[in-house]
């Protein structure tokens, strides 16, 4: 058997895997009856439906031709995810200003044409704008500087 539609194949597999995982977890919750449904009822029903749809996709991928999955490049995604996680860590420990700076400077490298000087300048501009807009004007509860600073 040859996979003729890789996108259908992989998405079908993902849908089945996720559905099975949800259903496995849902068996821990009371299923109940049709009249008095427990918290496990709806997830299992939806899970069955989703797994079924996934199976159709999977089966179809051996019959119908489809486009291949375009080769992705890992850096943009990886750098973006890392930058966002760093934003979270920095926001927790160092406050908003540092968090934005880290996010911008690291995140900028998700693009190949990033230049350090430029992204530093952008970081300064965005820190300034965000503090003025979100903290001063809108009064959102954001800590701008680390606690030991002030």
């Amino acid at each position, binding site marked *: 058997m040859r996979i003729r539609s890789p996108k259908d194949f992989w998405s079908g597999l993902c849908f089945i895997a996720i559905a099975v995982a949800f259903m496995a977890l849902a068996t821990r919750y009371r299923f109940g009856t049709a009249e008095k449904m427990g918290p496990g009822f709806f997830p299992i029903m939806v899970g069955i439906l*989703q797994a079924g749809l996934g199976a159709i996709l999977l089966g179809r991928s051996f019959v119908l031709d489809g486009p291949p999955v375009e080769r992705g490049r890992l850096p*943009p995604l990886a750098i973006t995810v890392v930058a966002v996680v760093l934003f979270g860590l920095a926001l927790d420990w160092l406050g908003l200003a540092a968090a934005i700076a880290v996010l911008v400077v690291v995140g900028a490298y998700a693009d190949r*044409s990033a230049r350090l000087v430029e992204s530093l300048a952008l970081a300064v501009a965005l820190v300034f704008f965000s503090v003025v807009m979100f903290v001063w004007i809108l009064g959102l509860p954001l800590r701008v500087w680390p606690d030991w600073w002030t």
Partner: protein
Amino acid sequence: MELLSNLGLGLSVALGWQNLIYCFVGCFLGTLVGVLPGIGPVATVAMLLPFTFGLGPTPALIMLAGIYYGAQYGGSTTAILVNIPGESSSVVTTLDGHQMARQGRAGPALGIAAIGSFAAGCIATLVIALFAPPLAELALKFSPAEYFSLMVFGLVAAIVLARGSLIKALAMVCLGLLLGMIGTDVNSGVIRFAFGQPELADGLGFVAIAMAFFGMADVVMNLEQPGQSGVYTSHIGRVLPTLDDLKTSFWSIVRGTALGSILGILPGGGALLASFAAYMFEKKVAKHPRRFGEGDIRGVAAPESANNAGAQTSFIPMLTLGIPSNPTMALMIGAMMIQGIAPGPQVMTDRPELFWGLIASMWLGNLMLLVLNLPLVGLWVRLLKVPYRLLFPSIFVFCCIGVYTVDTKIFDVYELAALTAVGYLLIKLDCEPAPLILGFVLGPLMEENLRRAMMIAQGDASVFFSRPISAGFLIAAVLLMAAIAAPTLRAKREEVLQE
């Protein structure tokens, strides 16, 4: 006469100086971000959501609505000038709009788009005022069974327009439903699928999902395939269309508005379907259809009127039934819940000032867009030149701050990071995120109504077919599915969506 007094109430709310300012700010910000290439209305609304957190419900919704149609308008500007549609509903505008710009008629193209949108907005506002109250009244009589069937119908109808495979779209709805079940189950108090994480007890953040799928994952996709820079047209010329232009496009605007208003009400309709249908229709009725695609002003006037009318009337199911017909409306529902308002038919009776104020503000907002945007076109054009490498880190910043400020929880930021990866994977596999968002928003409501309906019927599932309205919805859903699955219609749908 109730209509007039309602609209009067709405106007008195919308004309309050505070609401007027928020409406203006919303339109302005929406256009500003909407013009930026590569940012659609969903991402715009999601990113600007934190701007409304400090406000009361009425000004917050007025501002969000302003952001929405501002973004929509901004999308048309990019479509005409750069040939990159800011969003799917302005795809057709690029056909004739960009041709006009190439012929040195960018000004009139932008002008007619604004005038058409304004005219359509005025009429669509009246349509909402006329149709929303009876619909809400009807919806108040719905029992859980009807509600459940309505949601099934709404979800099925909404995926009709998802691009690509229907089965994938359905599976994405299911995935959305499953993700929506994470967190505390309202009926039993059991915390489901939380892996012992207390942060997940409230469920996945709606804003995090919307931003990850429509903002961050989109950016990552764009970064992977660089080099999509359009042809800039710096020469705009006179913005005001000539009298001749107006004469040519008058009936196109009327037809576009009518089609848009009707299609917008249907779940799954909204702006996208409206603009496509209006363009096709215009081509059919035109005496010289060959001129379409070569810079015919009617090819701009009709879809632009239609998408604005459709965008506006898609508020009807959202406001009266609490059912989102597209991802933007799902965001609006999310915003309402953040403000502590349960969307549904009771909004109109419980909070008339919110309901009518919002509707009246749409009319004012359209007027603002008209007076604001025509003179400011020069500024928007300059925005188009902002390079993407400066733009995308800014998108990151707004998404991260936005996600964090919903609940001031750091956990939500990590959630955003994880969901970005998931969203990227799904888009890579050609799974559109829109059906997932709709499923996610409707999931908890669907489950609750299903449970209640079955409880009332003592476990007899035939209740969904024995009640006429409920059966009607389900039959409509089945017919719709059958219709799309039928080969001829399927080919047609693909053709329409491809074009």
